[in-house]
């Protein structure tokens, strides 16, 4: 989770957006963290670089929990 938070904050920082201090399984990527499609696109690339999985391959995922699941299933 910590690692994912770091990646999420990198994306936020790159767009000049406010970084997050706390996230949990239910944190919604768009509604809570404030990602738009460009951020989601960058997120997929960074996660793929780190964990070798395209989290959106089978469709959009919405929460941190769902992202963790994709990563852990790999």
């Amino acid at each position, binding site marked *: 989770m910590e690692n994912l938070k770091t990646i999420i904050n990198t994306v936020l920082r*790159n767009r*000049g957006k406010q970084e997050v201090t706390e996230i949990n399984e239910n944190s919604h990527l768009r509604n809570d963290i404030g990602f738009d*499609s460009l951020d989601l*696109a*960058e997120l*997929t*690339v960074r996660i793929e670089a780190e964990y070798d999985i*395209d989290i*959106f391959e089978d469709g959009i995922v919405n929460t941190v929990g769902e992202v963790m699941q994709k990563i852990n299933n790999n």
Partner: protein
Amino acid sequence: MDLFYSDISKNQKVTWDNLLDELNNLSEYNPYCYHQDFYLVFKHIILSLLLEREIIMLDSDFSEDEIQKLTRSTQLARNNININKKNRPAINSKNDLIDTINKVGQNWTITLFTSGTTGLPKKVNHTFHSITRFVKISEKNKSSVWGFAYNPTHMAGIQVFFQALLNGNPIIRLFGLSKDQIFDSIEKFEITNISATPTFYRLLLPAQGNFKSVNRITSGGEKFDEKIAEQLKKIFLNAKFTNVYASTEAGTLFAANGNSFFIKPEMHSFVQIQENELIIHRSLLGQSEFSVSEWYHTGDMVKIVSENPLQFQFVSRKNEMINVGGYKVSPGEVEETIRNLEGIQDVRVFAKSNSVLGNIICCEVVKTSDEIDELSIRSFLQSKLQEYKIPRIIKFTNKISITRTGKIKRI
């Protein structure tokens, strides 16, 4: 010594007498021109003209696989033809040679392949007339010394070759040489004319020195960069700058000062701009193996600067446009913007496919200052470009990838 060709990297010097000697003694001809050595390419073209036989230009770095696909020939050597020297009068002087070449008939064709950045290279045939359309023969041009900075098997290189050949000028290799070798050659041979891609010039910079002999710098093949021109003017103080538009399909069509191409009134009926794409009339083209409708879509996206007289600027190649979530991004525009940042030497913008947006913009950067990092580039771009154009992935590197014709690699 009347020099025909020289390559400083190989200590190679060929005089017109050497050339004539070799031409007069050749006993074999192969329509496929496939050589590493630029001199052999040039000699081959001249021979094809003297024999009035077709010549087919192949890149020296094509693999056997690629050649098989392009020529459908399993072994190039099988196409060798014996030629009887007795049937040909010997050529005794440079002027004799040039006169004979100028009289070549309609049957002579030269076949080129487009650079193939999108799929398999396309075959295009040209006649002597269409390939030499823009060649200017004059007394003034007789004393030019040409710096050869293109791939000799592609359109740009062949244009320079004919310009030099028909004016009897020496050709000095610059393409593929190191920066030092290039500047040495310019000084040693007192090169007067250089034609090259903006990428070639960009890779020469930064540079110091005063190369007084150069009186003409021509740029073609990619969008012209005002910033490069400014830097080049400091080392080539006596040079006039020209920008040229040419394609493998059409040969050279327009020239410009700076970025705006001016369409002469007599060309107006042969040029159209539709949905920002440059369209040209089929009569301007060489022969292509694909049937072309009356109007040929060049794939070049342009911006009209003025209607009367008609002037336009090149924006980017249509297929280079990157589709980011429906928004079209011109990699050239993003590159230009990034280059404006202090501390950036060079940059290459390209697409990476992405399951969210289709594509995202990435770039590799060569920096000259340690103060440059991802964040500084991003905050600079925030105020200059729309969000979707800003590269999502920024990598720092020592070298930018370029194609076999000396242009920035886009895919």
